């Protein structure tokens, strides 16, 4: 059982800074997802925690103990790698038992733990095979079983599902979530897939340009993005943004007046999620450019006051491209951002 404390951690490579002063606490048994586009520093942070790279500055604690100087083997962690890293010269059994054997555990105990981990990942029938005889999904299961068999304090996962095809990924996502909940291990999971993050995480840490922009529960990351970046990164389609001008104690966006935050600025940004719009007589008007039926919904791309604007509407509404429609934003779902700092305004 372990809490992870990251204090002021910085990682500089020769010519650029991959991580800028990261502060993060992962609670015991928490499932934290590091979410970000490639190059945002999420894998670097994971590798620092694993001990595969070393922080330039700051401190990393696992279970209250400083681990900066410790090699990976002394950190009570286990890691699942993006390309699985299943040892090709060993059978599945020996792969899963590898770490236990390194711990010099007696072989009957190894057998027992390997069998248990294999059963959790439903690969007990594959124990005698070699990695070359396994499919990608099966290799993935071996990699997770190998990490679980170690019974680590902290489980680190680096985009474990990114090499699987879409259907398998969805299956594994649900299964992995169940297994990890059961194992009660503190987990840090790196991904660039926001659906994965949303569906699995207790808490999401959104990373961008070597900073953690926001660390919060999936729903508050979605509903209350801390910055314009988070709003535009999370959600598919992303948030809509419109410039809003001050006028008579209100904020006017695309000619419509809204109640907004009281800040000492002339222009701020109005933001609304595409599904938080309802057809109405008054509201934001625009000409429809494209209508994409998605089954349960239709995605309407339109022009509002010269800005690209998307709405997700009921699929039975008769809307054609070229028409002008009016949509009313749900008042409690409107968010505001400072255009300079890009931070959310209350």
């Amino acid at each position, binding site marked *: 059982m372990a809490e992870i404390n990251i204090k002021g951690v910085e990682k500089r490579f020769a010519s650029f800074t991959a991580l800028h002063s990261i502060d993060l606490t992962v609670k015991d048994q928490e499932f934290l997802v590091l979410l970000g586009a490639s190059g945002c520093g999420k894998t670097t942070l994971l590798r620092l925690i*694993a*001990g*595969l790279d070393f922080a330039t500055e700051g401190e990393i604690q696992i279970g209250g103990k400083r681990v900066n100087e410790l*090699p*990976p*083997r002394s950190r009570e*962690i*286990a*890691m699942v*790698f*993006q*390309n699985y*890293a299943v*040892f*090709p*010269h060993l059978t599945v059994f020996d792969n899963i038992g*590898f*770490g236990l054997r*390194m*711990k010099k555990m007696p072989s009957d105990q190894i057998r027992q733990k390997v069998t248990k981990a294999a059963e959790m990942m439903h690969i007990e029938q594959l124990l005698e095979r070699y990695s070359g005889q396994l499919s990608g999904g099966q290799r993935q299961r071996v990699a997770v079983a*190998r990490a679980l068999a*170690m019974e680590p304090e902290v489980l680190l996962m680096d985009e474990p599902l990114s090499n699987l095809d879409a259907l398998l990924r969805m299956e594994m996502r649900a299964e992995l979530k169940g297994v990890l909940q059961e194992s009660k291990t503190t987990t840090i999971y790196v991904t660039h897939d926001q659906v994965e993050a949303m569906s699995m995480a207790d808490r999401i840490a959104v990373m961008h340009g070597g900073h953690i922009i926001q660390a919060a529960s999936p729903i508050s990351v979605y509903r209350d993005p801390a910055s314009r970046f988070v709003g535009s990164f999370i959600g598919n389609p992303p948030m809509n943004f419109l410039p809003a001008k001050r006028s008579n104690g209100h904020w006017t966006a695309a000619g419509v007046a809204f109640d907004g935050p009281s800040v000492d600025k002339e222009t701020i940004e109005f933001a609304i999620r595409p599904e938080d719009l309802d057809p109405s007589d008054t509201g934001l008007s625009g000409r429809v450019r494209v209508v994409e039926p998605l089954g349960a919904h239709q995605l309407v791309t339109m022009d509002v006051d010269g800005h690209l604007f998307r709405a997700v509407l009921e699929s039975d509404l008769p809307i054609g491209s070229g028409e002008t429609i009016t949509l009313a934003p749900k008042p409690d779902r409107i968010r505001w951002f400072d255009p300079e700092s890009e931070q959310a305004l209350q």
Partner: protein
Amino acid sequence: MTAADMAVPAKKVRMADHRTASRWLMAATITILCLWVLVPIYLILVNTLSSPAQVNGWPRQFLPSFDLGSLTFFANYQGVARALLNSVVVAALTMIFSIGLGAPAGYALARFDFPGKNVFRVVVLMTRAFPLPLLALPLAIMFIQIGLDDTRFGLALVHTMLAMPFAILITASLFMGVPYELEEAAWTLGCNRFTAFVKVVLPLVMPGIAASAVFAFVISWNEVFAAAVLTIQNRTLPAFLLTSLNEAPTELKFAGGAVLVLPALFFIFAVRKYLFAMWGIANR
């Protein structure tokens, strides 16, 4: 039909001609190269497997009579056994030294970024750019000064120098073929750098290392110049044959040639797949 229409098939025919011609040229070149290599080997084999009388007689034989007279004569010739033993010992030492030193260097090239890495890569090859005759005399003097002259160990050192560039480059490409992630996984599973190497990397590259060792063995086995200059009593087989060429009968030369060529051919054939790896051609 217009002239333009006619021109198209004509052009096609010319292109087809061209393709046939280049195919013939290719086939001819391959045939000549194969004959170049195979005919001498064949002649050596024929004469080795014929009796001394047939080897020296007229007309020449082109089919072996499977008479072991030449080989028996060779085996009983004064000094052959000792030279053969020297060859094996020197080649084995060369193999051990060049892998023992070359494999760690190859690992470093494959895994670490260090200043001068590319220079090192070139310098490794440059050692082969110096003609051995140029090095042999200074080496001989140096060896006499430090007492390494006419020893198997001293000769093995020189052969190691010849074999090591290949050992380094082949092993480097072998280590590059092992994903770094595997080593990292081993570290997270309780290994340190050394145990991860022994338990994960080594088993995966072992066939290639063995091949590279065999290659080092063959380089030493075939080397004649340094062996002839640096040894007198402890001649290896090629050096021994070279120095006794003048007085030895023809059948001895053929038998000696066969004994030299066959192991080398066999070994190289066995490990050819890994030699390609040296040039970065994926062959797994």
